[in-house]
């Protein structure tokens, strides 16, 4: 069997846990929502900013590179158009032009050459010995012959070093000639190599076949996935395409791509995602740390707060329980006070008889012959009468004492029929002079009730006392006490033929300090105490009343036994506790 203390402990533990979870929930949900929304919005905005920055960067550099190529092409076209064939076919002239160009643009130009329509280099100025070199089979030559000008991809060619060619077709003396300049790979490469983005960002150029046109700072193992859409020509060449993916080293990277050289080349700026989003990541980490610290704070506060609240609650429950007992005790003393007048009169009668009988004995003893037979018989009768009346006094005091002893809230198994009989007997004197008849209809074989005998006695006494008072004010009548039971409950009905209770008062009669009795005659606590006691026992108390007919108070109590046991999470210390001892005090002298 679960003890009340243990049951209360479980109740308070459950309450602590519930309060703690509610506090944590209520604090965490808005915290998570707010932080989540802010972080998400911040993340999105930050990403957009990074992408915009990359877009701007790539567009700017692609324009730079494009204008570099256009400028170089412009140089060669001016050269082709400004001079005659005999000047261009003069290697000394070409060397001078090359020197001028190199002086103007540094080491960008490697060499210059004039190639006839058969692909044979007619004149050459540069560091290699390429005069009369045959380019008829070179891809760039064939491509250049088909259009006005041509800029090749980077290739090794006859010289064996990476370079690319700007070729311009010019018509001289009835034939097409190609004026060709070789652009130094290193010079071109530095244009792209100098692009730095963050700590890990770099740039490179690819042609349509996915071949490098510059030397990437970091070796990029192309999975081609990020570039494939562009390489297949699916993207708009005028727009920057930004994709994220895993690079050849397994690192997540962002790649921004823009078209160059009329869509033949692709400028790619690649940066590790961790580097690009470093600030975002730092903010996220800071936010997470702040969240964890707040979370720890909330959990700690929830823990201590709930502990403290429940401790206070337990203390308040304890105080309430003590106060309840005190109020019940006070109410009981008030009831005893009300009974006292009747009891005093009840005791006064046998006392008066005893005094008169004793006086009669004195009278007899004053006779001349007190021991004559007649006198002896009278003395004997008087002694018996004194004894009878003395016993009557003892019965009255016992009845009163059984009620006036201190309230014991411990729950026992109580026989309600015996309790009703005791209470009616206690009120016998009061009802005798008040023209009130008390009738009892007690159900045979009534099951026992789990209750504190003294508290339950007080409930019945208060109800019967009120009923007797009600009947008395209407000039006499009957109070009927009925006990009955059904499957789970036991009932006591206290019915009176009094004036009835007005409907306006019916809702208030169980309120503390509500009384219709004159000042000084009622505390207004009786029914309120009854209500408290009955509810504490897990029962209820109801009233039906009709003006001019009377009232019926019905007390329902749970049956003692397993069916009356209460749920584990019920409020503390307010439920009956069954003890295996029965209370015999009430049966004494009964």
């Amino acid at each position, binding site marked *: 069997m679960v003890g009340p203390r243990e049951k209360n402990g479980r109740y308070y533990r459950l309450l602590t846990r519930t309060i703690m979870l509610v506090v944590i929930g209520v604090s965490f949900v808005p915290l998570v929502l707010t932080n989540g929304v802010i972080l998400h919005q911040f993340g999105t905005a930050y990403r957009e900013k990074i992408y915009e920055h990359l877009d701007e960067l790539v567009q700017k550099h692609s324009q730079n590179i494009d204008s570099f190529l256009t400028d170089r092409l412009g140089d060669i076209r001016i050269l082709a158009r400004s001079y005659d064939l005999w000047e261009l076919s003069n290697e000394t002239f070409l060397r001078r032009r090359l020197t001028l160009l190199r002086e103007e643009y540094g080491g960008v130009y490697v060499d210059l050459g004039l190639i006839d329509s058969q692909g044979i280099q007619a004149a050459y100025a540069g560091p290699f010995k390429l005069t009369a070199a045959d380019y008829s089979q070179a891809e760039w030559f064939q491509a250049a012959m088909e259009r006005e000008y041509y800029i090749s991809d980077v290739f090794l060619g006859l010289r064996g070093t990476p370079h690319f060619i700007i070729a311009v077709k010019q018509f001289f003396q009835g034939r097409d000639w190609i004026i060709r300049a070789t652009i130094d790979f290193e010079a071109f490469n530095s244009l792209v190599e100098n692009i730095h983005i963050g700590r890990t960002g770099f740039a490179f150029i690819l042609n349509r076949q996915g071949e490098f046109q510059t030397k990437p700072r970091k070796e990029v193992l192309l999975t081609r996935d990020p570039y494939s859409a562009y390489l297949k020509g699916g993207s708009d060449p005028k727009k920057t395409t930004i994709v994220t993916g895993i690079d050849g080293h397994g690192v997540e990277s962002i790649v921004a791509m823009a078209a160059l050289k009329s869509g033949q080349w692709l400028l790619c700026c690649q940066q590790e995602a961790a580097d690009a989003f470093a600030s975002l990541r730092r903010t996220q980490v800071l936010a997470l740390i702040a969240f964890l610290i707040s979370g720890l704070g909330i959990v700690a506060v929830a823990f201590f707060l709930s502990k403290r609240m429940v401790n206070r609650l337990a203390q308040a429950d304890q105080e309430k329980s003590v106060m309840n007992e005190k109020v019940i005790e006070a109410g009981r003393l008030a009831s005893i006070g009300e009974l006292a*007048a*009747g009891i*005093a*009169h009840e005791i*006064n*009668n046998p*006392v*008066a*008889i005893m*005094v*008169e*009988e004793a*006086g*009669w004995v004195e*009278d007899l003893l004053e006779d001349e012959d007190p021991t004559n037979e007649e006198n002896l018989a009278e003395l004997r009768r*008087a002694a018996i*009468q004194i004894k*009878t*009346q003395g016993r009557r006094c003892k019965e009255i005091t016992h009845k009163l004492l059984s009620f006036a002893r201190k309230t014991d809230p411990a729950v026992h198994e109580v026989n309600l029929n015996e309790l009703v009989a005791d209470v009616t007997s206690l009120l016998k004197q009061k009802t*005798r*002079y008040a*023209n009130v008849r008390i009738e009892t209809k007690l159900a045979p074989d009534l099951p026992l009730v789990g209750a504190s005998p003294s508290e339950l006695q007080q409930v019945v006494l208060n109800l019967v006392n009120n009923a007797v008072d009600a009947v008395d004010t209407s000039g006499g009548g009957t109070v009927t006490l009925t006990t009955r039971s059904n499957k789970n409950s036991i009932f006591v009905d206290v019915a009176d033929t009094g004036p009835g209770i007005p409907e306006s008062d019916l809702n208030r009669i169980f309120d503390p300090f509500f009384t219709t009795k004159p000042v000084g005659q009622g505390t207004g606590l009786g029914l309120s105490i009854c209500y408290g006691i009955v509810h504490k026992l897990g029962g209820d108390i109801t009233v039906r009343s009709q003006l001019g007919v009377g009232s019926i108070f019905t007390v329902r109590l749970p049956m003692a036994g397993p069916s009356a046991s209460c749920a584990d999470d019920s409020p503390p210390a307010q439920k009956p506790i069954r003890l295996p001892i029965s209370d015999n005090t009430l049966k004494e002298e009964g």
Partner: protein
Amino acid sequence: MNQTVVLLVDDEVPFVEAMSRRLTKRGLTIIPAFSGQEALDKLASKEGERVDVVVLDVKMPGMDGLETLAAIKAKHPLIEVIMLTGHGTIESAIEGMKRGAYDYLLKPSDMDLLTTKVTEASTKKRQHESRIQEARAQMIALRRGD
């Protein structure tokens, strides 16, 4: 002088019996009654005509002491009534005095004091009666004188 006749009214039978014995021993004639109604019935009967004093308990079931007192005084204004009371009903006894009771005594009372009060009340009643008789005789004489 005739013996004083006392109607002793109380709902406690052993009390009435014990009192009757003691008062009889003190030379009084006792007529017992065990309720207000019985007291009124006995006063209305032949033997009731002899009653000088009623010793009346205040607290009785049915018709209580005050009601009985009122009924006695209404029908038999000359009969003196002594109220017997416990401590709790002392206000009722004083109320009885206001309504014409001769005196009141606390229960249990001293027998000699009760006997004295009864004798005094009886004397008062008989004096009243003799004065009334004298007045009546004077009135008859005055009429004859006319």
